[in-house]
């Protein structure tokens, strides 16, 4: 099942989120957390590999007021046998609970399969977030996205959107949200064509996103593609600049303790964009951000200067941004 934005989660004591499609995994977790918080529950979130044997009991114990917390554990397939056994026991113990107790996040695959089977065996709810690889699935995805925001997306519109935006679900989700917000809610192939032909920056943004995520190969591939289809180098440089500036702005605003609406207002970005930037921020240090901003400024000057090879300047900037991510 492809979880669209507005998935309502029925209360299940144990939920297993299975798969590697990051956007869907994050949404599934967010939905579970939101549901628990909505009924006043406490939520604890951590990576399963950080669990010491015996620690689980302490984490699942009731708080001062007698409420048991919802425990979200990522990377459960990576745990050692001791902790895995404790997790299986915890799943059994939680079966009869009225509220959500455990969300186990599992990448799928053979590793940790015993734990997965055991959790499902005691009645755990499974949310499937397998990697979306087929074009048809992407089309299903964008249709579900459009439905969730109350827009109607025609068949040819869905195909055109996937063709224009690419394979990344985050990009597709963002494109749906943007089209929904920018149009009267009726999206067909003509609307998509109009939107993306006039907005060559869409390509530049893909370059910027891959670069700040440290995915060098994909970033360079996107860059070559963008240049090949005639995207103006100035627009790519500008998208790269926006990408690294967003890191700086969101990072510093978040470190000042701003959250949610306050954060969005401070940095002037829509919430979906902030979520993405927050995810991209993992692994970045202030010194790294400084180096990336400088690389973007140099690229901006180089592509405007004309004389030098703009493609080379952009490639250099992408490399510099990806390298900056490792600066501590």
């Amino acid at each position, binding site marked *: 099942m492809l979880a669209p934005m507005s998935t309502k989660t029925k209360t299940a004591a144990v939920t297993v989120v299975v798969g590697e499609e990051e956007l869907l995994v994050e949404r599934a977790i967010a939905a579970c957390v939101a549901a628990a918080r909505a009924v006043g529950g406490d939520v604890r979130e951590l990576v399963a590999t950080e669990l010491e044997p015996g620690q689980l009991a302490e984490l699942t114990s009731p708080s001062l007021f007698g409420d048991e917390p919802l425990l979200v554990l990522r990377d459960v397939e990576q745990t050692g046998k001791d902790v895995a056994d404790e997790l299986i026991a915890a799943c059994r113990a939680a079966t009869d609970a009225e509220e959500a107790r455990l969300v186990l996040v599992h990448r799928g695959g053979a590793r940790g399969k015993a734990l997965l089977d055991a959790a499902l065996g005691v009645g755990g709810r499974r949310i499937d977030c397998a990697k979306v690889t087929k074009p048809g699935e992407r089309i299903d995805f964008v249709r579900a996205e459009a439905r969730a925001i109350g827009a109607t997306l025609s068949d040819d519109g869905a195909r055109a959107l996937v063709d224009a935006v690419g394979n990344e679900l985050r990009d597709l989700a963002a494109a749906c949200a943007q089209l929904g917000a920018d149009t009267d809610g009726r999206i067909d192939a003509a609307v998509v064509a109009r939107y993306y032909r006039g907005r060559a920056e869409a390509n530049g943004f893909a370059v910027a996103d891959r670069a700040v995520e440290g995915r060098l190969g994909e970033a360079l591939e996107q860059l070559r593609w963008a240049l090949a289809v005639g995207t103006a180098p100035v627009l790519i440089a500008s998208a790269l600049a926006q990408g690294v500036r967003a890191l700086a702005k969101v990072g510093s605003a978040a470190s000042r303790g701003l959250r949610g609406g306050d954060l969005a207002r401070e940095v002037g970005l829509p919430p979906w964009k902030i979520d993405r930037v927050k995810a991209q921020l993992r692994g970045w240090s202030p010194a790294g951000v400084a180096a990336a901003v400088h690389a973007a*400024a140099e690229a901006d*000057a180089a592509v405007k200067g004309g004389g030098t090879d703009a493609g080379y300047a952009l490639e250099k900037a992408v490399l510099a941004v990806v390298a900056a991510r490792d600066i501590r």
Partner: protein
Amino acid sequence: MTVFDEMIGQQRVVESLREAARGVGMTHAWLFTGPPGSGRSVAAKAFAAALQCAAAEPGCGVCAGCHTVLAGTHADVEFVRPQGLSVGVKEARELVGRAALSPSGRGWQVMVIEDADRLTEGAANVLLKAIEEPAARTVWLLCVPSAEDLVVTIRSRCRVVSLRTPAADDVVAMLQTRDGVDETTAEFAARASAGHVGRARRLATDKAARDRRAAVLRIPSKLSDVGACLDAADALLKSVNAEVAELTTELDEAETASLKEAFGEGGSATGLGRGQSGAAITRGASRAASSALKELEGRQKSRATRTTRDALDRALTDLAGFYRDVLVLQLNAGVDIANTDRATEMQALAENSSPESTLRRLDAILECRVLLDANANPLLTLESLMLRLRDG
């Protein structure tokens, strides 16, 4: 009083210009070079006045010739002050045409080009021909920061006048006698402007300029984290934009109004043909008006870009001055610091960082100027600068 009084701390140059005006060593092309603020255009103007002077000792400062040149109204002296980022072929051709005219008076036809480094390559070639074969009574005075800023073909045909950075004492004396500034303010301004005469005068006489400088010098101690760096960049650019708006808005409006007036009907280009039936002439006039307006807007935009760049450059010069002082303190160089009013912060930074990191900061400022010159997005470039100043 003579026309050379305005040249601060340039006694030797004044002597040779006086001689040339008397006819000793006179030539058709002159190149005035010197660091920013050393008074290149002031020197060129004084020399132009001396060349039109009727007195036995040229440059008397009181005759009609001297007076009209200094006021910018002498018929045989053309001042070209590039307002945009460059001077193109078309403008250069106009100048050459003008230069070919014989002077109306007994003196010279004088062509003064300030910021001749803004000549495009094409424009420089146009000029070269005129300088190679000058009319008998025409003299070209070109101003550039250094001789290397001009193509060698032109440079080699010019007599070079090198101005030096005036000593602080000379600047202090000038501010006191010329502008009636009190001693303390004069000393502060001369120091803070590091020998840049125009800047010193501005700091001494304009409180807003002093406030802006103070704000720039407070930046280094504010760069605590990434967010503070972004804020500092934003604040600096806003202050520069406000300064530029102040400098250009009134001028723009006056120019636009006078152009519209020249085209008549109090008016808008579209209003020109109104009420007149089927007159191709009015339609033509309307087109001419709207194209003239468009051209004016283009020039104003180019001027605003240059004014912004100059204002940013002033701010970056002040900022570089701060770190230069820090380096002086770190190296115990025995050189006076320029920004005595920020000594406490500079001392603290000098003690808590290495000379190497101060040099990296100075490099970052230099690179920032290069990027801005290459037309990089100003906010992005300033953000990059602040982040690098923070890291050191």
